[in-house]
């Protein structure tokens, strides 16, 4: 989990994505989202259903469905704005630089192609090496994820659930990407298999110096493996900081409530909190803060003005993290946490 350098590998700047619904209605699924991923870092993108986390990930990979459109922002990968590329150029990045694993391996794997062939396919597609070398690479990958080479020629349905997930990871790593996007990779798995897969991910990350962006709703999983955390709500970033900052001193009321809603094994029987109300409808957004209707700490300003993502300041001590290296800053989009002047 160590950050290797302070150089940014992937920088999302003010990304916005819209969906066109039936009847022409527009839904802002992702609104002005910004965060960075550094080499070797694991970033957890957390939120509940409808918050825009999966759409964000798909926007980065530019795999949106036809009704989706990225309307603004930049996606800087190693300095290159991916949004300025055409589809052909973008294809060179997919899988070779950025790869993805999905929630359900059974849906993502082709049932009529052997696992070995599926792992080999992207290698050959990207023209990286000849057939023999590709075969050796497949063996290497299977080794890395802990699948016996003898099972190379089996079909996905002959694998167990955990093994399929491993196969999917092997497939994703085939072209030596530098970033791995994981969409709810362990959600459908038993807790023990989940632990195995997470352990594998961390192992693989250490071995290959990968960055990982983990999209999930499971706060526990994110706490286990992430260096930094982005909490999303209603399409916007609510809070962004290191894992330690977000979990142990959450600033945004949503983050605070969300953490309270998570049962703690060590303190059973405590009253569990819930958040009243429902997430906002993305085609009918309020003018002010999106969390305001459900927030118990709201002030008058919150319903008028949507807060920007800014560094967290504390009434007594000023900015909590100023002076730290840029990637260790703690940001939140809440009037109560940020600049004092706005509040007057």
């Amino acid at each position, binding site marked *: 989990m160590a950050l290797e350098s302070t150089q940014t590998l992937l920088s999302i700047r003010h990304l916005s994505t819209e969906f066109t619904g039936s009847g022409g209605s527009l839904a802002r699924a992702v609104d002005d989202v910004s965060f960075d991923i550094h080499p070797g870092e694991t970033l957890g993108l957390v939120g509940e259903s409808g918050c825009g986390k999966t759409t964000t990930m798909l926007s980065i990979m530019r795999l949106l469905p036809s009704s989706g459109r990225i309307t603004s922002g930049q996606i800087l990968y190693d300095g290159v704005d991916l949004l300025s590329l055409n589809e052909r150029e973008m294809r060179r990045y997919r899988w070779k630089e950025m790869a993805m694993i999905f929630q359900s391996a059974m849906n993502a794997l082709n049932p009529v192609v052997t696992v070995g062939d599926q792992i080999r396919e992207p290698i050959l597609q990207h023209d990286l090496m000849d057939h023999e070398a590709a075969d050796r690479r497949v063996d290497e990958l299977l080794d890395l994820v802990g699948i016996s080479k003898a099972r190379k020629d089996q079909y996905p349905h002959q694998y167990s659930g955990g093994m399929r997930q491993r196969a999917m990871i092997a497939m994703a790593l085939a072209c030596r990407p530098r970033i791995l996007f994981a969409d709810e990779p362990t959600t459908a798995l038993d*807790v*023990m*298999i989940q*632990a195995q897969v997470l352990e594998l991910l961390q192992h693989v990350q250490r071995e290959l110096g990968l960055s990982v962006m983990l999209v999930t709703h*499971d706060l526990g999983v994110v706490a286990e493996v992430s260096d930094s955390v982005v909490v999303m709500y209603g399409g916007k970033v609510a809070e962004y900081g290191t894992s330690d900052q977000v979990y142990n001193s959450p600033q945004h009321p949503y983050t605070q409530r*969300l953490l309270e809603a998570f049962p703690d094994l060590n303190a059973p029987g*405590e009253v569990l909190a819930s958040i009243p109300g429902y997430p906002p409808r993305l085609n009918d957004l309020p003018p002010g803060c999106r969390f305001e209707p459900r927030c118990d700490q709201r002030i008058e300003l919150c319903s008028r003005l949507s807060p920007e993502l800014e560094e967290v300041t504390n009434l007594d001590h000023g900015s909590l993290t100023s002076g730290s290296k840029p990637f260790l800053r703690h940001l939140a989009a809440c009037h109560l946490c940020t600049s004092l002047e706005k509040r007057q």
Partner: protein
Amino acid sequence: MIEESTTPTEPMLQVDQLVKHFPVPQSLWGLLTRRKAAMVRAVDNVSFSIEKGEVLALVGESGCGKTTIARTVIGLEKPTSGQIIFNGHLVDVVARQQHPEFAPLEPGSPGTPEQKVLPFVSLRRLHQKAQMIFQDPYESLDPRATIFDIVAEGLEVNGLARKRSERVEKVQRALDEAGLRPAEDYFWRYPHELSGGQRQRVVIAGAMVMEPDLIVADEPVSMLDVSIRADILNLLRQMRNQRGVSILFITHDMGTVAYFADRVAVMYLGRIVEIGPTRQVLQNPLHPYTQALLSVVPVPNPRLRRKRVILQGETPNPIHIPLYCRFQPRCPRAFERCTLADPSLMQPVRNVSGAVSGGEQHQAACFLLE
């Protein structure tokens, strides 16, 4: 009529040596050669009891048999052998199957001790007094039925509340107590118009309208957003407190267990491997499987560093279960005794370091306790 049992210590539900095996479909050759069919031993000799007003959690990974137990207790599956005793009454379907010479008799009639002591309850009565809440709020409601119809179905099917006004009143009260207010607003809506949390409340209302003694809840919150899980759990808790209904709570999520259950039973491959009061089991797990499970549950606290016992491999197939301890192949603490015999639930003989587990029964099926 089910009468309340007179002895105050009698549990509301007692499951005794329950076994449920599913035959594996045979190939044609197997059929022709009359080979004995392989059996999936989903539930392999399970016994437990639930007191009135108690919440017992049944925890385990997929394939451990917890859902099968739930379905059997509710009457959706017929047990292969074993007994289910509900409020002091033997559930009819089991006895009939195993002992066709039994006929429903008055207690005290000539015959076996069971006939003498335990009156029968038919499956139909069982359905009224034991209700189930399913996991998927999107699938457990008929998309073409109105909320009123869904909640009233239990009444209609069992011939209760025959007058329409009576039915309306009961449905309204059930929806109200489940938190859907004003109830009339929901009567004529369809399930797809409600959110996941609301749908689950409808399911709960549909169960509570029958005023059951037992609720079997199969992963009732695992498909809901975290921020509304607490609402549903609190609602169930309220039902328990106000109406004294017992709850058999099936889940794989240890966190919910910690919050909600009085006692917890951990299952592995069709057997209960540990059972006891929640606090004790969580803080002082006796069985290596429980210890491993608890060590890998993700905790939302990055500062917490604990030793994780990650078991290798996957849960084996419930078709081939060894005659000795079924956890032995993956157990990090197995020793010679473990391959020689099959441990049954026992209490720790030696006093495990520090923690006092006196009083209530905390048992585990492991030779390490001897």
